[in-house]
């Protein structure tokens, strides 16, 4: 398991470095708040621990669960709000470009 963990760690760091470097300064704030939302991923650790541990440890996990969820939901929501504001000349309408078109 440790092996798999380290592989995933290295692969994510390398791939992440590549794609993140390509994000233009224009979008650095949304990038950051999006990354911020991702750091709330610790919510899944909180869920796993909360479900299995004895009550005295469960209280801490419960607190972690709530805080991480605030982080995730708040982070994605502010990012959504920000990105909706980025409109170009050709995109005055509410219709957004869909990447797979």
């Amino acid at each position: 398991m440790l092996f798999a963990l380290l592989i995933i760690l290295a692969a994510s760091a390398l791939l992440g470095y590549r794609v993140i470097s390509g994000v233009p300064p224009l979008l650095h704030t949304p990038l950051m708040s999006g990354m911020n939302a991702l750091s709330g991923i610790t919510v899944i650790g909180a869920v796993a621990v909360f479900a299995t541990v004895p009550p005295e440890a469960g209280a801490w996990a419960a607190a972690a669960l709530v805080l991480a969820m605030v982080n995730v939901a708040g982070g994605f929501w502010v990012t959504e709000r920000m990105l909706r504001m980025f409109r170009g000349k050709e995109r005055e309408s509410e219709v957004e470009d869909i990447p797979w078109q």
Partner: protein
Amino acid sequence: MAVTILLAVIILSGFIWGIRLMQSPRTALWGNRLGALSMALAVIWAFLAAGDGGAPGRIPTALVLAGVGAAAGIALGQAVKMIHMPQTVALLNGLGGAASALVAWAAVLAYGGQVEAQIFWATSGIATAAGALTLGGSLIAGTKLQGLAFQRPYQVPGHGYILRLLLLVCGFFIALNMAFQGLFSTSYVPLIALLGLLAGVCMALRIGGADMPIIISLLNSLSGVAAAVTGLAVENLILTGTGALVGVAGLILTRIMCRAMNRSLLVVLTGFTPPARPQVSPETEPPAGVKPPLPVAEAEREREKDSPAAERSGEAGAAPAASREAGEEPAAAPAGAHGEAGEAGGVGEDAAAAPAGETSLSEDRLPALLQEAARVVIVPGYGMAVAQAQQAVRQLVDALEQRGKEVKIAIHPVAGRMPGHMNVLLAEAGIDYEKLLDMDAVNPQFPSADLAIVVGACDVVNPAANTVEGTPISGMPILNAEQAKHVIICNLDENPGYSGVENSLYRQPHVITLWGDAAQTVPRLTTMLQENETPAS
């Protein structure tokens, strides 16, 4: 196991693909949504997996808790204003860090008795420390950004040593935690958390306003590291991979910010200030050594002032009025409230300062300059945001474009309180993102520009960065606004920016300065443009 790995790869690919879509403003919104979707998948998977071996009643409780958290998060995300984005990110960051530390602590409490693997004890200690560090740093950074307290860099004697000592002791207990594998006590972990928290507070306390982009990026990175290490502790692939992504993103942004500000990360964190600081304004220079907390009233004014452009000076209220009173007089003449600052600046600059008022172009030329310019570059700084002049700038842009002029907006990487902040503020005001150019793209355009309009920016256009050695901004990449044929400066006053370095641009002959609140001076430009229409030009 195979399913776990497969799912982890799918979810991580979702995140990475989401970031890839963020490389263009056209697809970024979908990138964010893909990220959110992957996150939802990860959370659902976590619930399903936990449901198998969970204690009775836990899953419904967890669902309720998650619902409460999500609702609170969305409410918060809906409520915040765009100008408050840096402190929002700081706060959310702190919560994420706290959550990571708490998960590690709960895991130690729960599994501590049975686990002997050193990796568990090492990672749980590190995760706790990183999470607590993030929390402590973020809370202080958020407090500063919100303007609640500690507006100036605040330090106690031996600040750097205290910080190092805290980190060292924290590291020592992490090592103990690992060496004894919880044999004697699990109480190392709360101790580690406490030390980490203190170190975070200590680190952020002495960060000043303009260094905020750096510390915010760094804390972002730290929250990722905390998550990644927590993932190692509880053996969770998704947690580890995502944490690594966030950690790398934060590091990249930290590096960009450091370069753009000409600071090394070490300098920012240890508070070492470059030795020579010529031409320092007494207002903006942080005195060395002990700094008492500001009295409330002063802190109120400080909060407006502590921007890279030093848009607001101590005379925040009086200055715009004074500038208006000055009316049609030559703009650079220090009027009323500016007297003191003008003198202070003059001491270091006697030769240059004296003839400034006479040699500068007079304000009377402004309407003609605006009419004649075909290519205009606007340089906004944080001072514009402080003055809430985004809408005024947008109206100016519209007015210029209606007259067939080409308008670009030049954005310095650190114009704002976090990376890319200025872009968001201008996008919010309804300015097309195509007009927002970053430094590398816009600098070649200045020589061919007829007019550069600087709004609330000082250090980022200060030619002294290239010409004068030994100042805090020497060697810092700047926007070459001085290369434009004419430059209009709409700053609050002529005090130096955050760096404390006198701006030599203000004294140049092709520059017109229009001191005052940008929310009033920028509309004046628009009015000049509209009222002095010459029919056949």
